[in-house]
């Protein structure tokens, strides 16, 4: 109960602080552009690290692969405002491990996900953007032990990311992004570092 009070207090404090700063003119309104609206495509690929020891219990004598591929794509709508909104999806392997079952037989488990996330983004420095948003993860377990089994479940979750991009032209930028992808069903998230290409494919 005490923790909840602190949490509510801190959330209110942060929201109040954000509100105060977000009312500043140079925060809410970007420099005037000839065509104020645009759609941007972000394509990213890299590696993710699953930092938790949970998820592969000792009784299975696990050999965990914590570093796995993380590939994502997002489309962001860039309005005449600093806050952008969009959708992100992709394919993430949270972790996988080799196991030894009770009978001594070997097997393998991997936990993967297709995230579908609503995202919000702000540019806090030139070329430097923050992204965050809630959504769902379509999780799937691939089990290879005494036969192959694929089992799916939808989990709520969220992501947060920071990206730095260098413009190559008016339409194309490249950059790097660090992100935290979290599905509540897995309890722990995966930290990813990706290379990124941004393509401004529509302006109006």
């Amino acid at each position, binding site marked *: 109960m005490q923790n909840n009070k602190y949490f509510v207090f801190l959330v209110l404090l942060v929201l109040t602080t954000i509100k105060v700063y977000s009312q500043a003119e140079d925060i809410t309104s970007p420099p005037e552009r000839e065509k104020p609206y645009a759609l941007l495509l972000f394509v990213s690929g890299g590696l993710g690290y699953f930092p938790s020891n949970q*998820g592969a219990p000792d009784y299975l004598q696990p050999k965990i692969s914590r570093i796995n591929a993380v590939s994502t794509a997002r489309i962001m709508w860039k309005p005449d405002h600093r806050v952008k909104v969009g959708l992100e999806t992709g394919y993430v392997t*949270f972790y996988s491990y080799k196991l030894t079952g009770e009978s001594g037989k070997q097997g393998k488990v991997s936990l993967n996900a297709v995230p579908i996330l609503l995202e919000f983004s702000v540019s806090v420095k030139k070329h430097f953007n923050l992204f965050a948003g809630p959504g769902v993860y379509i999780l799937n377990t691939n089990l290879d032990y005494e036969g192959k*089994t694929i089992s799916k479940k939808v989990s709520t979750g969220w992501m947060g990311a920071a990206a730095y991009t260098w413009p190559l032209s008016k339409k194309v930028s490249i950059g790097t992004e660090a992100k935290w992808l979290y599905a509540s069903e897995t309890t722990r998230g995966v930290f990813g570092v990706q290379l990124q290409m941004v393509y401004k494919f529509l302006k109006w």
Partner: protein
Amino acid sequence: MIKDLNIKVWIALIAMCTFLSCKKNYVAPVPDTTWQIFNTSTAKKLVTNTRNKLEGIYTITEGSEVFGVNAALSWSYTITEADTLYHLSMFCEKQVVYMICEGKRLDSSILLNGYWRNMLNTETGIVRFNITSNSGAKELLDSTTSPLQGLTLSGSFGIGEAEPTNPVSLQYQRPLYKGSPLEIIAHRGGGRTADLLPASENSAEIIKLASRFGATGIEIDVRLTSDGVPVLYHDGTLNERLIQKNGLIGPIENYSYRQLTDLVRLIKGEKIPTLRQALDVVLYQTNLKFVWLDTKYDGNMTLQREILEEYQQKAIARGRDLSINIGIPDEMVLKNFKKLNDFRSIPSICELSPQDVTETNAAIWAPRWTLGLQPEETARMQTAGRKVFVWTLDVPENINKYFNEGNFNGILSNYPSSVAYFYYAKQ
């Protein structure tokens, strides 16, 4: 300047969300009850006569701030390969608090040693009683005397693992109520994992504990593995509420029995039991009288019926008064149940309408408690030779009301100790 501050705010927000997203892990482990004099070789088991004389309704004269004003003391037993273990459960008047003790005789004294637990929070601790010859043990150990008016059990209790130093005293008032019988059905085999019990819900281990919690019967949840083995599991999917996290997610029906038994452990480390393993425990290790098989799957129920009939026959062969019933919780199961040959002859518990109860010839009608006391419909069912169980009653005030104002033959609860208190304390 403002932009710089904005970055700091965002970073602080993300850091704070990450930090605060860590969840608190609640535990209520059974304390270490090792008591040197209780474990000496000269301490002997109590005989039946002494055990029986300890049963009754007691007033709690010391320790009532933790245990309430009254308690009902009742023995139960479980059978192991080597022995029969007896436990004296003290079902307290205060909301869902109980004590569970073993008893021994040491010379001319009686020792009771165990633990207490408040189910509504994580409070627990050691509890011990030492009944000396002069304070009642002499009469309790004498096979020629009757239950003792004015018998006082004096002891002490602790908090957590601390040595018991707080006084607790119970004074005998009257015998347990044993009028109209009531089935006290423990939910999920004995209790929910969320209530931080010593064993996981729907495990073989929790079934062994059910009678110590006051239950006379259990409700267990039956699902089928991908290769058709009936197992006990409540939720629709494997999840960290019920199992140790291992990367396996999704419906239990996606996995074979071999995969589940080799790779999955329930929260307290147990394996997911098969229905047969669970019924073996009921039949051979407990004195439970009633089993409610809550059907959680959509599929052919023939195997479940065959197992029910097999164990009903085994119970008869052992001279056990054991009733096993297939639960019909919804229309889907009702449809599958009706596909069974001669389904009207199968012992069942129907949670649906009175018309469905009649159509299936269910032995028991089980309306949810939110539908109220339903005196007229209950009377009609009982006149037709059926029993009426109400589910799931957990709030002590509701348990008291439904027991005393209703006319139910059974109550399903996550807190059977609370039902047991109100039942035994009835006058």
